[in-house]
């Protein structure tokens, strides 16, 4: 559905006009086979632990989500009211597929699931996220993550 021409107005124009950052080159880091990778989820759905600070505005910061979090402890405070949340209300895996990742790790298809996952609030300007994202890389390395799984909303 989410090809631009399949969205309805006025949402189509709103999304089409969002400024996208441009990059002259694309960095490329290789790693071991999937069966040895350690995977962390990086969401832009404005997710966080119940009781953690809500996302209040268009800032580029992120929230930390511990890997042993339960579905009932994860909430959304993304600023947008234009994406569906009823899917998440039924099953958190539709935005934050931690149960699926745990299954893949148990089966040996991926190496392991990281101890920590993270969420930004994706309506923020990507340029505002850049400093936080570059710092986040060090945290991911500390957690021995060699596969960041980025999931939009």
């Amino acid at each position, binding site marked *: 559905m989410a090809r631009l021409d399949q969205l309805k107005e006025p949402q189509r124009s709103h999304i089409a006009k969002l400024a996208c950052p441009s990059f002259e080159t694309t960095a490329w880091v290789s790693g071991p086979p999937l069966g040895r990778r350690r995977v962390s989820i990086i969401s832009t759905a404005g997710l966080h632990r119940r009781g953690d600070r809500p996302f209040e505005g268009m800032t580029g910061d992120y929230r930390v989500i511990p890997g042993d979090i339960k579905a009932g402890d994860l909430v959304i405070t993304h600023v947008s*009211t234009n994406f569906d949340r009823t899917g998440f209300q039924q099953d958190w895996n539709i935005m934050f597929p931690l149960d699926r990742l745990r299954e893949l790790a148990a089966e040996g298809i991926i190496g392991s699931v990281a101890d920590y996952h993270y969420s930004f609030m994706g309506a923020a300007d990507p340029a505002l996220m850049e400093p936080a994202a570059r710092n986040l890389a060090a945290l991911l390395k500390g957690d021995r993550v060699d596969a960041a799984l980025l999931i939009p909303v």
Partner: protein
Amino acid sequence: MGGLAHYLEAEGIPTTQISLIREHTEFIRPPRALWVPFELGRPLGAPDNPELQRRILLSALELLEAPAGPVLVDFPDEKIESVTDGLHEPEGWACPVSFALVPGDETDIEKMVSAFRREVTELRPWYDIGLERRGRTAVGNFDAISASELFIGYLLGRTLPASDTNLPFPVALRLASQDLKAFYFEAVIARPGATAPGSNAFNRWFWQETAVGKILKAVKERCLGESDKALRLAGTLLLVPMSQA
């Protein structure tokens, strides 16, 4: 999303991602992306469909083994249309709750408020039962009573009502509106014989057939007339979806 992939990869972390808006991903050119044909809010396709979620996840993760990039791949799925696409969802969902709406006069705030209170009272036991059964709620900051009193206080009062949170008032309004929506959804699907509506059917019902929809639209209108910039922004963008404005 694609910007984050560039920043992380440049710092030495291999990334792969799901893409919802293909045109954006084509422009940003992140290292590895899987485009999926689902509506916004549903990157993993459909709730309670672990088999589909697993295939999407594996398709995204397998891009990590691509020899060179950037790669942008479309998720192949022959069964997608029946799964989740909001454009194809059945028209027939009828909410088992039928509220006696205030007839006609939508400007009568007090009648709207009492209809709203009746709705919340009627839905509350089903919300509680659903919560008990599933052990989980997506309601985050405002239970239904404090959320509704926040809106009612704002609509009836001359000044901004005090919120018992430390949140700025415009943020409280936005979070309370999402929490109320989650409350209504979770209550409605807990009723006997109820099936979960698709997102379009739920939105149509919530915004067009309930008192809460009218209340939130009245709150939006009031926000638009405020001098405070954050309240005006909430009114313009953050309370009522574009599809319902």
